[in-house]
């Protein structure tokens, strides 16, 4: 097992090297540079020497592979560089944005699992009945419903037509003056619509996933045996069948790890939510190379870790799987 993990980590490091290399080359070939924005500002006269100096600081005077080498060398020393846009260390920026994104993604993950497990079990018990068909069809439609359309519709109904929920952002303008209880309530109100949009699609996906796995398991011989022994139906479903569908469910947790942090670029943009997805969008439009690289690095490390975790968990929960 240990040698397997070591081998996977080494391969993962190689993959990371390729990813960062490709992305660095890509973003360096985007038209415009971090300086373009500042140069376009007519109110500020920047003399050519300053531009040269700034280019040297940003590494723009070197070809991309040299600049990439410098970035990599700094990274090995655990330095992700400073954001060109916000003049702050990238790690600090990511630390700032990670909280709001996690607030959305963890809440929605929790809600999705909490609701989808009973729904999936219910659907598998009632398989083929009218109510199950209606529920499954509705869930399937929900699964195909684009989240950004849902977000806009929610905004229209709950924020524009009725003033029930705040339209944008995470905090009220007077957030600073609030007491603790009011602050919690404020963030809660702001997060209702984003969390809904985050949750519904994965809810539909998970419950369908659970149902299809259950349908496979309940056809197994040991379920028939359990029923023949006279075990109650609830116990058969929960204890005998559901426990065995946990395996794919557990591996899926590993695979959702990266989406927990990457957030949804589009949703965070619609709700002006100060999270990682929005940070990425801002840094792409501002050509903020170090921030883009930092975010891509975080996303891809998590994706690789998630895949590794899924494989390890697979071996842990299923004794038939071994990697030695």
């Amino acid at each position, binding site marked *: 097992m240990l040698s397997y993990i070591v081998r996977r980590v080494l391969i993962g490091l190689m*993959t990371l090297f390729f990813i960062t290399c490709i992305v660095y080359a890509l973003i360096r*070939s985007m038209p415009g540079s971090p300086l373009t924005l500042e140069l376009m500002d007519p109110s500020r006269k920047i003399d050519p020497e300053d531009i040269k100096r700034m280019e040297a600081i940003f590494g723009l005077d070197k070809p991309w592979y040299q600049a990439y080498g410098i970035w990599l060398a700094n990274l090995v020393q655990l330095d992700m560089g400073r954001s060109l846009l916000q003049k702050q260390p990238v790690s600090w920026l990511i630390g700032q944005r990670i909280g709001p994104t996690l607030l959305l993604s963890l809440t929605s993950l929790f809600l999705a699992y909490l609701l989808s497990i009973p729904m999936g079990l219910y659907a598998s018990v009632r398989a083929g009945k009218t109510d199950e068909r209606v529920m499954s*069809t509705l869930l399937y439609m929900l*699964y195909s*419903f684009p989240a950004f*359309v849902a977000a806009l519709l929610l905004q229209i109904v709950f924020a524009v037509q009725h003033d029930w929920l705040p339209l944008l952002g995470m905090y009220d303008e007077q957030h600073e003056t609030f007491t603790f209880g009011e602050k919690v309530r404020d963030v809660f109100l702001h997060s209702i619509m984003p969390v809904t949009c985050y949750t519904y699609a994965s809810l539909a996906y998970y419950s369908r996933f659970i149902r299809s796995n259950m349908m496979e398991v309940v056809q197994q011989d040991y379920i028939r045996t359990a029923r023949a022994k006279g075990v109650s139906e609830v116990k058969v479903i929960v204890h005998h069948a559901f426990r065995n569908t946990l395996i794919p469910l557990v591996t899926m947790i590993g695979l959702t790890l990266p989406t927990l942090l990457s957030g949804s670029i589009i949703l965070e943009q619609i709700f002006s939510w100060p999270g990682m997805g929005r940070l990425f969008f801002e840094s792409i439009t501002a050509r903020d190379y170090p921030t883009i690289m930092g975010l891509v690095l975080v996303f891809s490390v998590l994706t690789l870790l998630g895949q590794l975790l899924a494989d390890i968990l697979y071996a842990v929960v299923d004794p038939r799987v071994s990697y030695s």
Partner: protein
Amino acid sequence: MSTSPPAPHIAETIPDAAPARGYWSEVWLRFRRRRLAMLALVYIIFLGLVALFAPAIAGTKPVVCKYKGEIYFPALGYFKREWENPVFYRDRFRREYPNNLQEKDPESWAIWPLVYQDPYRRVREGEWQDRPGNPSGNQGNPNEINLFGTDSYGVDVFAQMVHGTTIALLVGFVSMGIAGTIGIIVGALAGYLGGWVDIVCSRAIEVVLCVPALVLILAIIAIIEKPTIWHMMAVLGCTRWPDIARLARAEFIRLRSADFVTAARAIGVGRVRIMFRYILPNALAPVLVPITFGIAGAILIESGLSFLGFGAPPPNPSWGTLLNSGRANLQLWWLIVFPGAAIFLAVLAYNLVGEGLQEATDPRLRSAES
């Protein structure tokens, strides 16, 4: 002695031996049994027809007209600017056909699109019989003239949506066509050849799979100076192939040691021919499933990108662009509800077809049925 041949009589007595059905006709038979999937397929065909006949459904250019003794098809100009005959440009029609045709040639006649509305510009007052001009600003509620309302510039939403169908369908087909080709080739090489080719290809798959799709797409789109809808399709195709490649690789590994492949190799068939003439037809069905789901995904991503303002340049009517203009002013709910419904239905239809295909080609379900 009877002269009639005895053959029909014999044929009647032998129990009707059904001719062995081919693999694909069997898949089609199973697919047809799923009512929802069939409904979805019909809807996709309907969308294809809408895209094909978009200029005849909504437009301001005659489908057919006779002008100064010649027959013209000005509506083709919606597909390609050059296909609109330059004679109308020379005669200063300024894109307004109804009155100009009458004025400049009283003998002329024309067959008009079903709905006289333009996806690119506002229809002005008196342009079409005595109809008032399209309302602009936030006055463009849906009414009998503008079925789905107008946007803030007074451009008809229904016309934009009809013409946007072309983009939505093209994006799905072209990008997944590219992705499917790359994916199948990479998967075939990795699965059939194995060894170091497999290692290299699998790394490539992992690298592309690891970067969040939107990150990669945004970065590539930002590189292109003037992105057109075709660039976007290419980018989508170049980033969405890993899933297909993984499935194709698994299929090729499975079939690599099949008897018919060994037989083909024994009689000296070349490697490329074995891969694409012998194995691929047998591996195609499972690979088609992620391609179908991918089309739904591509439509979602395209509308999402257009929505963010990274999509096709403005004069292109796309469902996502409409949503984007609706977001700027949430009062105009019709800019969100109608295009949103169109995206939803298209995605749903492709997902349903994909699922139908998955179940029709799944060997486990097949054995259970027969």
